[in-house]
């Protein structure tokens, strides 16, 4: 309802004290963005500041729920997916939790640390460039070259890992890369 021009404010029924006008709106109301800016600057340790749009107690999700749901954005962080890893030349096998890693490069770094070697990440990017071939045994029992399929698909199907020396790769029964396209590595 437009009040402009008719100046009916004087006749308007109010519940407040006389003299308390509407012009106090902006002074009184603390806008959410002010508060969140304040809190972003607060040094109180009790308030966890993640982003600048966060205010204590908002959104109104009960603290039990917050503690138990929102830490795991990725279900893979919680599920344990340990697989055995063998490396040619290493006397002992190791185990690694695939769920702890975000992708192939992350996995490669972890493997390199585990076995104290280099060249695994290169191998994932380009099978020919490194002396290693990281391969894995999938659900069907086939040995596959790691790196072809999306990460999520890989960790779901991987049963064990082997870091093989490329020189031994031929004749092992690997599914060659590009087999679906009818091009075999031996053709190169």
């Amino acid at each position: 309802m437009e009040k402009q021009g008719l100046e009916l404010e004087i006749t308007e029924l109010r519940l407040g004290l006389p003299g308390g006008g509407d012009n106090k709106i902006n002074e009184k109301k603390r806008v959410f963005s002010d508060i969140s800016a304040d809190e972003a600057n607060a040094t109180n340790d009790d308030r966890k500041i993640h982003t600048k749009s966060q205010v204590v107690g908002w959104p109104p999700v009960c603290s039990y729920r917050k503690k138990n749901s929102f830490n795991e954005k990725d279900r893979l962080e919680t599920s344990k997916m340990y697989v055995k890893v063998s490396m040619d030349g290493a006397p002992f096998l190791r185990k690694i939790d695939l769920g702890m890693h975000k992708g192939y490069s992350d996995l490669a770094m972890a493997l390199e640390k585990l076995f104290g070697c280099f060249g695994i990440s290169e191998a994932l990017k380009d099978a020919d460039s490194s002396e290693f071939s990281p391969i894995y045994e999938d659900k069907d029992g086939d040995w596959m070259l790691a790196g072809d399929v999306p990460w999520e698909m890989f960790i779901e199907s991987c049963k064990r890992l082997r870091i093989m020396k490329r020189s031994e790769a031929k004749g092992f029964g690997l599914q060659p890369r590009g087999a679906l396209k009818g091009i075999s590595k031996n053709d190169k």
Partner: protein
Amino acid sequence: MNYFPDEVIEHVFDFITSHKDRNAVSLVCKSWYKIERMSRQIVFIGNCYAISPEGVIARFPELKSLTLKGKPHFADFNLVPHDWGGILYPWIEAFAKSRVGLEELRLKRMVVSDESLELLSKSFVNFKALVLVSCEGFSTDGLAAVAANCRFLRELDLQENEVEDHRGHWISRFPESCTSLVSLNLACLKGEINLSALERLVARSPNLKSLRLSRAVPLDALQKILMRAPQLVDLGTGSFVHDPASDAYNKLKATILKCKSIKSLSGFLEVAPRCLSAIHPICHNLTSLNLSYAPGIHGNDLIKLIQHCRKLERLWILDCIGDKGLGIVASTCKELQELRVFPSDPYGVGNAAVTEEGLVAISAGCPKLHSLLYFCQQMTNAALITVAKNCSNFTRFRLCILDPTRPDPVTMQPLDEGFGAIVQSCKRLRRLSLSGLLTDRVFLYIGMYAEQLEMLSIAFAGDSDKGMLYVLNGCKKLRKLEIRDSPFGDTALLTDVGKYETMRSLWMSSCEVTLGGCKTLAKNRPMLNVEIINEDDQIDFSSDDRQKVGKMYLYRTLVGPRKDAPEFVWTLSRRWVGTDLVKQHNSNSSKFLTMAGQEKSQKSQGWSKNPVPSGWNCHNIGVLSKNYCTRIIGYEDLKGTMA
């Protein structure tokens, strides 16, 4: 008045079960009051500080079942400091002393110590049911005492509590002779559980109907447990992760087929979506499904599941279901009565998980919907108006827009009209939570139309005192009002102080209420406790009344200021005189002060009419330092010196 003997009346009263009805019946005449109070077995106390345990026992000596609520609702959102109160122990102590035949105890937002659980387990021979919701302060040691000593335990229901896990194999403490369990809910426990002990417990509980497991129970253990309890009606899984190709998983699939009675499903505290197909066979029977604690299930997997759930009446889910998924819910779940959509990423920006579209679809497809909790990115007036037209049955309507002052993104208008439509259409609305950009106008509508409203939650809303006044004047049935970060001040607070005695409680934080306003409110109001939560010593009581009060919580009470208020909680005195530093001679004096104050408050006359009583009239108790009582903020007639 009585045309029938008392026994007949008592028999008639047996059919009156709602506590509101029994309260009404008690008011008819003295005879009915007496008959009713001697026969009431189920007692509900919405605020543990409104009455003392002794008072409850005196009035209801035959009490068997007690429900107690402690902290204010906003404690759920970390707005109430940790040691605020709500302590159970004095209740158990008093009940034990008076030999109350306690059989059931239901608690919400209370502080429950191991000592209280131990005392409980040893004091009440026929104790049958313990339900703890959003409580804290206890560990698995307390649970062990309950397991070991409550020989006829039927129900142990732990919902969303903070439990310290001492890993003491407490489950093994249930004796072999304990075969009475009907309901066991362990979902909130974090630590390891002795799985074989749990399995044996389930095996010897033929009446077990409801079982909710914790995350520490893996899928293969679940299978073994289900083999022992195919009669379950309510199941909460723990961890639901396994290789779908494994034997264990296939066994589970077969076992689930035998559980034909399961109507309610929850848990999935850890889940691999590829395993969800195991539960598809039982979905068609489900009336209740709670996936709100299941992290990381994508919308498509949720949809696949829900498509089988045609009988669903209650659904709790995360917003990753998306508007599209809600559309599927709307077309599948025609019996839906309650829907809760929680945010999966509450601080995420621009993650448009659900919007007004999902809600409109639900309202169109689910005519029986009456209870809603909906966290969303945005809402429009048009959508709310449509929802109001489609669904006039709402009794609970709680909308939370993640950015709480966001206007209608289409029109850039406040959401006053949308919520106005909701309150006008839903004549049975009892609970309402608002969000989004809102002016005083929405409160005008609420005051005008929300005649049945009992609980209202307000945040970042309104322009002036008028808003709050519309609500206080209009909503005759209002019981709980909680307000944060809104520009309501002393005028609104003080216009109708008598109103608060008709309500359970009022919470106001980060509003415009001043210390002076609170003092004025507390004056001559013996039936109200006006508490100020003074964290970090923000309020200096010796000076300016114009200071804004950070957090105020007031509630009606029969027993005056509470004796267990911590240092940072200040109960304002009824007879405000002034504040002063008072020198004390020893720190025991606080108890003396309290007791003197309390004694006087037992008198029936009411404070304001009495002449100044002799002795102390001091109301606030905090931690006293050796030489100073700095926390006394209202006193009268200091007579005599302290011992």
